[in-house]
């Protein structure tokens, strides 16, 4: 292979093993000449905050480093050509897909190697990638000394936690429609409850083989579903029109 055409894919999530892999990959590209492709995959994973915390701890992401910034700076120092890729999807799947699409020569990645039950729950991304891709994979496992030195060096890249800005809520057409639907439903529910509490005779009236009480109850359940679907349709249309998600 001609010098200068070597392409390495480096997936990074800002975890300590990924930062170790970054260092390795930059050195490798520098030696071989070529290009470093830095990939970050955003996981569309609905997680509760504690789940995220638990996972970050296991995967050595407890301090959130900016993996891309770290790679950029390192590549800059060593004068290595770099290209950024940001994808969304399943982590291993996107790594494999990107590697094939961009026709890279090697994947260099870190392994957090989560152990025990956590490993069982989370799975090993590096294992999954090795199994499913025809491309060579170099897996970096940092030892205790590496971890300490990376923490020291990467301090400048800790992602600051951003305080969310208090937004304005309660104005806009969507909210008004929601409020109107809410009052309509609340009124129906209240009427039903008052009848059930103080005028049972009406709910006992037979109708269509069953009684008004059951028909009313079913109507409340079905209209809740209907209101939900209608409101969502309306709100999605508004969002599409205004282009705000």
């Amino acid at each position, binding site marked *: 292979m001609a010098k200068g055409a070597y392409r390495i894919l480096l997936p990074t999530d800002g975890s300590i093993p990924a930062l170790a892999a970054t260092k390795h990959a930059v050195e490798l590209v520098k030696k071989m000449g070529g290009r470093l492709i830095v990939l970050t995959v955003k996981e*569309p*994973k*609905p*997680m*509760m*905050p*504690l*789940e995220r*915390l*638990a*996972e*970050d*701890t296991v995967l050595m992401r407890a*301090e959130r480093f900016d993996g891309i910034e770290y790679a950029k700076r390192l590549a800059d120092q060593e004068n290595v050509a770099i290209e950024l890729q940001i994808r*969304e*999807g*399943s982590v*291993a799947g996107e790594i*494999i897909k990107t590697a094939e699409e961009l026709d890279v020569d090697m994947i260099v990645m870190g392994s957090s190697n989560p152990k025990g039950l*956590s490993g069982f*729950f*989370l*799975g*090993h*991304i590096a294992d*999954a990638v090795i199994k499913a891709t025809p491309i060579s994979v170099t897996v970096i496992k940092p030892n205790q000394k590496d971890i300490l030195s990376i923490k020291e060096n990467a301090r400048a890249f800790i992602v600051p936690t951003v305080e*969310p800005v*208090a937004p304005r*809520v309660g104005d806009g057409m969507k909210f008004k429609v*929601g*409020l109107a*639907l*809410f009052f309509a*439903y*609340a009124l129906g*529910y209240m009427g*039903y*409850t008052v009848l*059930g*509490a*103080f005028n049972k005779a009406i*709910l*006992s009236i*037979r109708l*269509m*083989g*069953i*009684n008004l*009480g*059951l028909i009313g*109850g079913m109507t*409340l*359940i079905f209209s*809740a*579903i209907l209101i*939900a*679907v209608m*409101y969502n349709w309306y709100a*999605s249309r508004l969002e599409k029109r205004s282009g705000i*998600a």
Partner: protein
Amino acid sequence: MDYSFQPLAFALFVVITAITLFISVLAARRIRTASHYYVAGGGVKWFVNGIAFAGDYLSAASFLGIAGLIAFFGFDGFMYSIGFLAGWIVALLLIAESFRRIGRFTLADALVHRFKSKRVRLAAAVSTLTVSIFYLIPQMVGAGSIIQPLIGLPYEVGVVVIGAIVILIVATAGMVSTTYVQFIKGFLLLFAAFGLTIGVLIVSGYGPVDFVSNIISNPEIVTPKGAVVSGEVFMSPGLKFKNPLDFASLALALFLGTAALPHILIRYYTVPSPSDARKSTVIAIGAIGAFYILTLFLGLGALYFRTFDPANENLSAPLLAQFIGGEAFFALISSIAFATILGTVAGLLMAAAGAIAHDIYTEYLGKNKRGTNTLRISKVTAVGVGVIAIVLGVLSKGQNVAFLVGLAFAIAASANLPAIICVLFWSKTSERAILGGIATGLISSIALILVSPTLMGTSALFALNNPGIVSIPLGFAVTIVVSLLDGKKGQQAK
């Protein structure tokens, strides 16, 4: 009723439960490790979350409790189904998107974004903890109940053993991926209710409307408690709620409680955007609504085939399954009930652990800026809260789980909802008002439960079983009045 150990059913129960847990883990792993052709990708995150909402919400109360209440009290039991769903309308139309826009970790985070007040944070954390414990009690009662006919163990042993297993799973491993447990469990529960309903209709030989109509037309129904009433009376209000205000109080608590439950609120932070929060809620309403319609057939089915235990309302659905599908189906339904309890307990322990580890330990006491300690504290919290719930669960023997959850709803609606609504929508809300509102709602609802007929029998000081109709307006009133007074003071000071 006497129960003996059923080896086949128990073995099946263990196998099915293991498979369920394994599938949950696999689903969570897949998303991370499988290659692209397996995975649905980013487009369905709100769908997963919506079903997970349903999984979080449909607890032992909905499955075991409501079926029992309908079998024992007819229409009054069905009111729980109606109210449990109606609460989601409040969540969807008023809370979901606004709540997603603010806050980032717990209920307290959402409330302090306006005031930056440590005291508000502490109050919200205490309230979260209290509601979670009250919600955990019925899950433990459900756990003790299902183990009885399965192994023949006494109720108390069942609560302790199953409770301990559930807490162990959640505190050691489960924190890594409960969302997928909820997701799988939500599906399983719908499947179970649907299967049981089909079974009831096939075995009885009626269509859905005819089946209900047949019960209403029955001139003499012997209720599980031994009373004889006509079908018309059974399917009208008043069998359980002798006092009309008790009916109204429950209806109010269920309607306003859902949107104030901490374990439901924190799930809004799991989706990336407010519109995803809304879409998740819509999916949840569809799934939960379908489930509650089916509960009518589960309850009436248990009555029709007389598959109930007069001493334990919560066993109506599992015993119905045993009658319809034999030991295998019984084992299947029991393990789904177990998965249901496991999933809900996981969500509740996460909410409670978040309140202690994040709000009190990290933010209020200002300790530790690193995640590792927070994680350790949250695991310890989960175990501690779980043990409290086990003890209270043993003490609550014989109570219906849906009734107990109704109390948790009343506390949540009284303590949390006034604060949430006012912080979101009313700019005049003051810090003192939030503190006063949470304290008033929390203390009044719990005090009224303590002096209610549930705990004091005939010598009760308060006539209603559910405190909602008094404590919810009281919580709102204090929040609003104190805000107005503070506003006036502020103007005079200027």
